[in-house]
C-alpha cells in the first residue's frame, strides 16, 4: 500500500551543521519524524554517486535527434493549428470574419475570441486548424479582422507621462488592489525589506550618490516556441506540452474547458527551453493550449498548435523594462548609512514589474533602506517571470550605483562591498572569485590601464575588471511526490510527474535514488513528465532539484527499508543493522555478511514493492536565501564602442550539488544569458505604430558562439538548505549579477558609465563622450 505523508507531522530535533563547510554554524533543525536525517556536506567524498560529475542520461537521445519534443510529436490524423493575434496595439475589435478561412479546403476547425478589447499586438483573436502547416497559414491569412484603433502607449518612459494614453481604466488595472493608481501607474509598492529611517541615514551620510539606470524589455526566446498537441479520445484529453509545469497545464486547461482534471493527461518528455515563460497553462499573453483543445474537439482530430517565432516574441511573456533611481549614502570609510531604491517597471499589460529584490537583500549591514516600486502599463505583451524575475534589472541598478559610490569614495568596489556585507556565505565567496579573476590586476584608475596589470592597452582596446553581487532565495514546493517501485527481478523504477526542462533533473534524481538504494544510477529506470505520475512542482524559482531530491531520497529510503526487511533473515540480522552499496546489502558491522540487491528483491511476496511519498516539509535553515557574486573582465574598443566580455567568474552556492557537471552547466548558461542581455538584447517597438520591429532572431540579437568568453563557475557548497538532501536550486542566482558586473568592468576599462542597456556601440560611445566631458 502506498504510504502518504500527512500534514502537521510530529517532528524530531537534531543538531546540524549549517553554512560553509569551512566555517560551519550550529543549527537545530526539526524535520518530520518520517523524514530522514539530511546528507552531511562534510561527507561528500563518501558518496558513491552524489557529488560526482555524470553526463546526463538523455544526452544520447538529444545529440542524435531522437529526443522527441512537443514540436516533434506526430499523431495519426493530426491537424496543424495556428493562432491569429491582434495586428495593432490598442483597439476595439469590430468584427472577425472567418468565412473565407472556413471555406478553404483542408481547414477543419476555427476559433474566435469573445473579447472585443485589444491591449497589445499579438493578443489572441482567432485560430484555425488545417491538414498541413501551410494550409493553416493560408487559412490564418484569410481571417479578416476589423479594428477600431485606439491611442496606445508603447514604452515605459512614454507611458509614465501624464498625458499618455491609458492602457487600462483605473479600476481594471491588474495590479494589487491596495496600490495607488494614476494614469498608467500602479504603486508605490513598498519592499518587505524596508528598514530603519532613510532620511536620517542620508543626513548622516558624508558622501551621497544618486543615479538613474534603465533596462529594456527582454524576451525569453526559448528555442522551442510555445505550443501543444491536443488529442481527445472521447472525454479523455491528452496534451503534449512544451512546458515547465505539467500540472499547471492540466489544472489551467481543465478549468478553462470546464472538465474534470482526471480526464486530462499532460505529457512532456523533453522541452526546448522556457526560462520562466512556460510556467502556466499556455503563456501569459495567449491561451493557445485551451484553443488547441477546442480546435481538436471541433475537428474531431488531434491538433498540433505551435507558435512561430514572431508570435513567440509578442505574446509569451518578457522581462519587464525597468527605470531605477538609486540613492546611496555612506560615510567616508564606505559604511553605508542609507539606500533609497525606486523603480518603475513595465510588464506590458501585466503587473508585477518589481525589481527591488537585490536592493533589499544586498549590503545587509546597511541599517536604513527604503524601496518603492511602481508598475507602469504599456500596450505590449504581458511579462512572464524571466530567470530571476526583476533581479538582474534590480542588481544592474543597485550594483552600478554601489560601483559609482565606490568611485566617489575612492574605495575599491570589492572592499566597499565587504564592508557592508551581512552574509557569511557571500563574504567567503568574494575572495574565491577575486582570486579566480585576478582582481589585483584591476585598473586603480578607471580608464587608465597603466594603473592596472591587465596588460598593455592594445591601442583603442581597453580592458577592465568589474564585479557585482547577486541574491536569490531558497524556494521549495512541498507539492512534490515520487514513487519508487522495486520489482521482484531487482529492477527499479523511479516515477515522478515532474518535468525535466533541460537542467539535468533526470540524472540528478537517478543519482539520488541510486545513492540511497546502494545501486548504480544506470539501474534506476526513470519515468517522468506525465501527469499520470505523482504530482511534481512547476520548474520555476529554481525549485525543482530541492523540491524533488528530498522526496526521491525519502521514497528510495523507504523502499530500501523494505528491502532490508527482506534481506535481514537471509543475513541473520535485524533490518536496522544493514547497509547497502554497489548493488549489495550487507551487515554494516561485518561486510562479509552480504546478499545481492536482486537476491533480496526476489524474496518479495508480490510482484513489486511500491513506495509513494510526498515531500517532507521544508525545515527551517540558518538562512533562506542564496548569495552569489560575479567578476567580469571586458575589453572595450573606445573608438567604436564595441564591448567584448573576455572572462567571467561566477561564485555561487547551491547547497549540495548532486551532479556538479549539470550544476555547473546551469551556472555557465546563466552567465551567458546575462551577458547577452547586457550586450545585445532589446525588444524594440516602433514608437509610432507600436508593434515590434525585431520579432525574429536576426535583429533580436542573442549572444552567439563568436561572442563567447572564458567562463568559470565556482560553487561554494553550503550545508543545510532545509531538506534531507541539503540541495538548493541554481538556475536563477547566477544571472542576477551579470549585467552589473559587465557594466562595472566597462567603467573600469574606460571610465565611461553605461547606465542604459543594452551596451551597444551607440550607448557606449555616448557614455564615453560624457566621460570625456566630465
Amino acid at each position, binding site marked *: 500500500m502506498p504510504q502518504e505523508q500527512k500534514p502537521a507531522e510530529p517532528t524530531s530535533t537534531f543538531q546540524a551543521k549549517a553554512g560553509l563547510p569551512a566555517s560551519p554554524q550550529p543549527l537545530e533543525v526539526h524535520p518530520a519524524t518520517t523524514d530522514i536525517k539530511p546528507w552531511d556536506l562534510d561527507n561528500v567524498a563518501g558518496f558513491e554517486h552524489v557529488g560526482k560529475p555524470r553526463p546526463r542520461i538523455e544526452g544520447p537521445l538529444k545529440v542524435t535527434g531522437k529526443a522527441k519534443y512537443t514540436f516533434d510529436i506526430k499523431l495519426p490524423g493530426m491537424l496543424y493549428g495556428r493562432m491569429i493575434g491582434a495586428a495593432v496595439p490598442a483597439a476595439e475589435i469590430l468584427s472577425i470574419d472567418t468565412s473565407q478561412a472556413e471555406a478553404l479546403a483542408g481547414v477543419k476547425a476555427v476559433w474566435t475570441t469573445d473579447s472585443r478589447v485589444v491591449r497589445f499586438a499579438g493578443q489572441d483573436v482567432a485560430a484555425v486548424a488545417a491538414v498541413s502547416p501551410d494550409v493553416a497559414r*493560408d487559412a490564418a491569412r484569410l481571417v479578416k479582422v476589423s479594428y477600431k484603433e485606439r491611442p496606445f502607449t508603447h514604452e515605459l518612459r512614454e507611458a509614465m507621462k501624464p498625458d499618455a494614453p491609458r492602457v487600462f481604466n483605473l479600476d481594471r488595472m491588474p495590479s494589487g488592489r491596495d496600490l495607488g493608481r494614476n494614469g498608467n501607474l500602479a504603486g508605490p509598492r513598498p519592499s518587505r525589506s524596508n528598514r530603519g529611517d532613510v532620511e536620517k541615514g542620508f543626513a548622516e551620510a558624508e558622501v551621497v550618490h544618486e543615479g538613474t539606470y534603465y533596462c529594456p524589455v527582454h524576451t525569453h526566446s526559448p528555442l522551442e516556441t510555445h505550443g501543444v498537441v491536443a488529442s481527445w479520445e472521447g472525454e479523455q484529453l491528452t496534451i503534449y506540452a512544451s512546458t515547465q509545469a505539467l500540472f499547471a497545464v492540466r489544472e489551467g486547461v481543465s478549468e478553462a474547458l470546464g472538465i474534470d482534471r482526471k480526464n486530462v493527461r499532460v505529457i512532456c518528455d523533453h522541452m526546448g527551453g522556457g526560462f520562466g515563460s512556460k510556467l502556466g497553462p499556455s503563456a501569459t499573453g495567449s491561451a493557445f493550449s485551451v484553443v488547441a483543445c477546442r480546435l481538436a474537439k471541433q475537428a474531431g482530430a488531434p491538433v498540433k498548435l505551435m507558435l512561430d517565432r514572431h508570435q513567440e516574441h509578442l505574446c509569451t511573456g518578457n522581462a519587464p523594462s525597468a527605470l531605477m533611481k538609486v540613492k546611496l549614502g555612506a560615510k567616508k570609510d564606505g559604511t553605508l548609512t542609507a539606500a533609497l531604491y525606486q523603480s518603475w517597471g513595465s510588464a506590458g499589460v501585466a503587473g508585477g514589474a518589481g525589481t527591488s529584490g537585490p536592493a533589499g537583500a544586498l549590503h545587509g549591514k546597511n541599517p536604513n533602506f527604503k524601496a518603492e516600486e511602481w508598475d507602469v502599463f504599456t500596450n505590449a505583451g504581458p511579462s512572464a517571470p524571466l530567470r530571476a524575475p526583476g533581479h538582474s534589472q534590480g542588481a544592474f541598478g543597485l550594483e552600478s550605483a554601489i560601483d559609482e559610490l565606490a568611485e566617489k569614495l575612492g574605495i575599491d568596489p570589492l572592499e566597499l562591498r565587504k564592508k557592508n556585507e551581512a552574509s557569511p556565505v557571500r563574504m567567503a565567496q568574494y575572495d574565491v572569485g577575486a582570486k579566480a579573476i585576478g582582481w589585483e590586476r584591476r585598473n586603480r584608475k578607471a580608464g587608465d590601464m597603466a594603473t592596472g596589470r591587465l596588460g598593455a592597452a592594445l591601442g583603442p582596446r581597453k580592458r577592465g575588471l568589474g564585479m557585482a553581487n547577486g541574491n536569490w532565495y531558497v524556494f521549495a514546493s512541498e507539492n512534490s511526490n515520487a514513487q519508487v517501485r522495486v520489482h521482484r527481478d531487482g529492477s527499479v523504477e523511479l516515477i515522478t510527474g515532474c518535468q525535466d526542462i533541460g537542467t539535468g533533473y533526470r540524472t540528478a534524481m537517478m543519482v539520488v535514488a541510486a545513492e540511497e538504494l546502494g545501486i548504480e544510477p544506470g539501474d534506476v529506470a526513470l519515468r517522468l513528465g506525465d501527469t499520470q505520475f505523482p504530482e511534481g512542482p512547476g520548474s520555476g524559482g529554481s525549485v525543482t532539484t530541492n523540491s524533488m531530491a528530498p522526496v526521491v531520497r525519502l521514497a528510495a529510503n523507504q523502499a530500501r527499508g523494505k528491502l532490508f526487511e527482506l534481506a535481514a533473515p537471509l543475513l541473520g540480522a535485524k533490518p536496522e543493522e544493514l547497509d547497502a552499496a554497489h548493488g549489495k546489502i550487507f551487515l554494516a558491522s561485518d561486510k562479509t555478511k552480504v546478499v545481492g540487491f536482486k537476491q533480496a528483491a526476489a524474496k518479495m511476496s508480490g510482484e513489486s514493492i511500491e513506495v509513494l511519498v510526498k515531500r517532507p516539509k521544508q525545515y527551517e535553515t540558518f538562512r533562506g536565501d542564496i548569495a552569489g557574486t560575479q567578476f567580469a573582465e571586458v575589453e572595450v574598443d573606445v573608438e567604436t564602442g564595441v564591448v*567584448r566580455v573576455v572572462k567571467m567568474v561566477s561564485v555561487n552556492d547551491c547547497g549540495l550539488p548532486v551532479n556538479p557537471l549539470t550544476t555547473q552547466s546551469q551556472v555557465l548558461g546563466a552567465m551567458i544569458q546575462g551577458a547577452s542581455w547586457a550586450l545585445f538584447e532589446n525588444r524594440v517597438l516602433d*514608437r*509610432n505604430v507600436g508593434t515590434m520591429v525585431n520579432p525574429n532572431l536576426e535583429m533580436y540579437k542573442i549572444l*552567439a558562439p563568436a561572442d563567447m568568453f572564458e567562463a568559470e563557475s565556482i560553487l561554494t557548497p553550503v550545508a543545510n538548505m532545509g531538506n534531507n538532501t541539503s540541495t538548493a536550486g541554481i538556475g536563477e542566482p547566477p544571472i542576477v549579477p551579470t549585467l552589473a558586473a559587465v557594466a562595472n568592468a566597462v567603467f573600469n576599462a574606460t571610465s565611461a558609465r553605461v547606465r542604459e542597456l543594452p551596451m551597444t556601440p*551607440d550607448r557606449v560611445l555616448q557614455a564615453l563622450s560624457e566621460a570625456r566631458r566630465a
Partner: protein
Amino acid sequence: MNRFELVRAQSTTQARELVAEKPGSVLKAGGIDLLDHLKEHLVEPPRLVDLKTIPGLSQISVDKDGTLKLGALATLAQVAAHAAVRASHPALARACGEAASPQIRNVATIGGNVLQRPRCWYYRLESYKCFKKGGDVCFAVAGENRYHVLFGGGPVFAAHPSNAAVPLVAYGASFVLDGPKGGRVVAAADFFQLPAQDPTRENVLEPGELLKEISVPSAAGWKSAYFEVRERAAFDWPLVSAAIALKVSAGVVREARVVLGQVATIPWRSAAAEKALVGKAVGAASAEAAGKAAVEGAQPMSDNGYKVDLVATLVRRTVESLA
C-alpha cells in the same frame, strides 16, 4: 509562403521567358533572400524560376589579364574560399567570408547578395506598408532608425544591405546582365540607384533582365582592405563597413576608392575621402583626414548619429591597415 509553381530553367534565355510568361514570377538563385520574402509575404509570386539548374553560372575564373569573373550563382562561400580571389581581391573575399553565417554562405550567391532587398526592419515586416511596398511613407524617418542611413536618403532611408557590393564598387566591378534586348554591362558604381529616382528599387535591373556574371578588373597594383563594425562578433549585419582600394606608387596614393557600406541607400563612394588621400602618403595623417572627409555631408537621423563617428573611425583604420 503562397502556393507557387517551381520551374527549373536550363538557360538564362529560358529563365527570362519563363518569368515573362507568368506575370509576377520571380527568379530564384540561392533562395536565401527570396524565401525570407516569401515567408513574410512581401512577395507572392505565382512561379519561381530556378537559376541553379542552369549550367555555367557559378564558375569563378581569372582571365589572363587578371580579370576576375564571378558567375552570379557562385556562392559566397565559394567566392570567399577561392584562392585567386583571396590573393588578388582580398576585400571581396573578406566581405563574402564574413557575411552572415557558414550555413547562409554555403547557399547564398554573390548575385543574390548584390541584388538582395534591404534589411530595414520596416521593409521586412509585412504589416508596415512603406514606400518600397507601394505605400507612401518611410517609417524610419520618425521611427526606429538606429540602423538606417547617413547618406543618400530620401524618401526612403534603408541602408543598402549587400556586404559584397561594397568592395565590388571599390574594385570597379561590372555587372553582366542578360536581357530580352540582349545583354548589357553596367558598372557596379552605376548599378545601384538612389531612392530619389524610384523608392521602390535599389538598382537599375530592368524587368526581364537577370544578372549573369560579375566581372572584376584585375587589382594588380592596388592595395585593398575591407572591414566592418558589428554589434555581435559574427553573424550580424554591420553597423558600418568600408572597402578601400589604393593605388600607391613612389610612396604616394595615385588613385583611391573609398566605399562605405550600411550607411547609405547604395554602396557609398566617398569622393571627399578619396580626395583626402590622393597625393598623400598612406599613414596616420592621411588616414585621419580621410576619416574626417568621409563623414562630410552626413545627415544623421534621430537615432543613428553614432554611425558618424564609426564611419570616421573605420575609414581611418582601414586606410591605416594599408600603410
